[in-house]
């Protein structure tokens, strides 16, 4: 009986639950789902991690390659993050070029992580050779807050990358790579994003599932790094007062500390 009621009146179904300050999956409106992180899951990638937030699963793989720096930024390497929402993760997506949502997520993740690695450290020799980090985040299960999972996966995977030592021989224009001495990547910041959905213009649900995101009238993502806020991204939707915004920012900060601890535990447990 409940299944029919849910398909015919999805919004009413949710309102009945929220009236008792509860969500259909049993969480209270401000409780976030549990996060699991595991690292170095793909041996062919130079750095990889898998993150699960509730049902949402994202796998991030980093492949390092060598390329010629851009003429206008001769001493900078490249960090190329791309979020992929394949048709595998949800019936919403079709095969072919990335959808609107995938591109918006790519943009959001690349802005939030632009200052994690100093691109100058990625340069081998100015104007001729630099490291190119191809970061590919593939969503395996689309059930809400995929951009949070992507960000956590990226920051965990970046910390597992080991770049071999490279010298650039000017005459022969050929690099020589010694595969054994490997150096860690120096990662400067650890941004963590927490997303919220506004239901019926006044109830704020933190860490919404896919259904809740569909029925929500507004979305908000707060990216924090310790005490500093990196981004408060609210792309329109029903308006929020600043007190509501303040609560969201404080919830985001506590969750960020929790997630960063989780990443450190995952990294230390698989220590080389």
């Amino acid at each position, binding site marked *: 009986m409940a299944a029919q009621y849910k398909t015919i009146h999805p919004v009413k179904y949710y309102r009945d639950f929220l009236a008792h300050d509860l969500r259909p999956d049993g969480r209270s409106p401000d409780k976030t789902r549990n996060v699991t992180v595991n690292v170095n899951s793909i041996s062919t990638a130079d750095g990889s991690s898998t993150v699960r937030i509730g049902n949402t699963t994202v796998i991030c793989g980093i492949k390092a390659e060598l390329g010629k720096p851009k003429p206008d930024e001769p001493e900078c390497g490249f960090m190329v993050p791309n979020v992929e929402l394949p048709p595998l993760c949800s019936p919403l997506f079709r095969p072919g070029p990335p959808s*609107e949502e995938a*591109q*918006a997520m*790519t*943009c*959001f993740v*690349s*802005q939030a992580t632009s*200052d994690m690695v100093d691109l100058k450290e990625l340069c081998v020799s100015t104007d001729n050779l630099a490291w190119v980090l191809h970061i590919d985040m593939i969503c395996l299960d689309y059930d809400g807050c995929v951009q949070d999972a992507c960000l956590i996966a990226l920051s965990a995977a970046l910390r597992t990358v080991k770049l071999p030592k490279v010298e650039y021989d000017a005459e022969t224009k050929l690099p020589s790579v010694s595969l054994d001495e490997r150096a860690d990547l120096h990662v400067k910041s650890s941004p963590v994003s927490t997303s919220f959905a506004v239901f019926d213009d006044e109830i704020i649900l933190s860490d919404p599932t896919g259904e809740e995101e569909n029925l929500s*009238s*507004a*979305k908000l993502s707060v990216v924090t*790094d310790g*005490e*500093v*806020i*990196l*981004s*408060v*991204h*609210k*792309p*329109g*939707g*029903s*308006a*929020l*007062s*600043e007190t509501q*915004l*303040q609560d969201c*920012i404080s919830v985001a900060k506590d969750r960020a500390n929790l997630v960063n601890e989780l990443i450190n535990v995952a990294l230390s447990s698989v220590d080389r």
Partner: protein
Amino acid sequence: MADMSGQASGEDHKLRPFYCELNVLSRPDGSAIVTQGETAAIAGVYGPIEVKPNKIHIEKATVEGIYRPKSGLPCVSDRLCETTLQNTFEAAVLTSQYPRTLISISVQEMQDSGGLLACAINAGCLALMNSGLSMKFLVAAVHCMINKTGEVILDPDNKQLKDSCASLMFAFDNVDKNIVSSSTHGRFTEAQYQEALLRCRTASTEIFQLYRDMVKKYAPTMG
């Protein structure tokens, strides 16, 4: 309009001169061009028009936001500001009045010298106002920056943005001045965020007053 370029530090708390004109294009149902200092954007609204079957909503209108950069094809970074435009206008328009139709708002960047997204939102909102579509509220967007010393500067242009460590954009509605959308770059503390928000909110009342003057100016044609 007085000279716009250098702004003395005293005027950090004033918006750049805001000049706009309605009904500038003949084909779209509503259009507006807005220049804020050196930044300019032009917006056109088509709606309610026929909607493609795969994008149809049964009980409300589908609002589609299109953002075109000045040159070249829209790339990935324009996509994020396109979704911001689309959701902001979707919140403003009373979509339940026009079910199963499409309202398409396209904004074209004319000149970008800082605060382009804010200028685009204002242009889109004025075009919606000019198109006669029923709306819940109007949206005013204000853009500010935090410079190295942590001071909030309102509506900076490109030169000031060079030494900024963070730039924030807020869009407010005119009913109870809540935050409809917020998009930020760079790092800042929560206190700086709250201060910037309040400064932008006071500036937004100025813009709403400009909107009211526009309506007064175009009143005779209302017949």
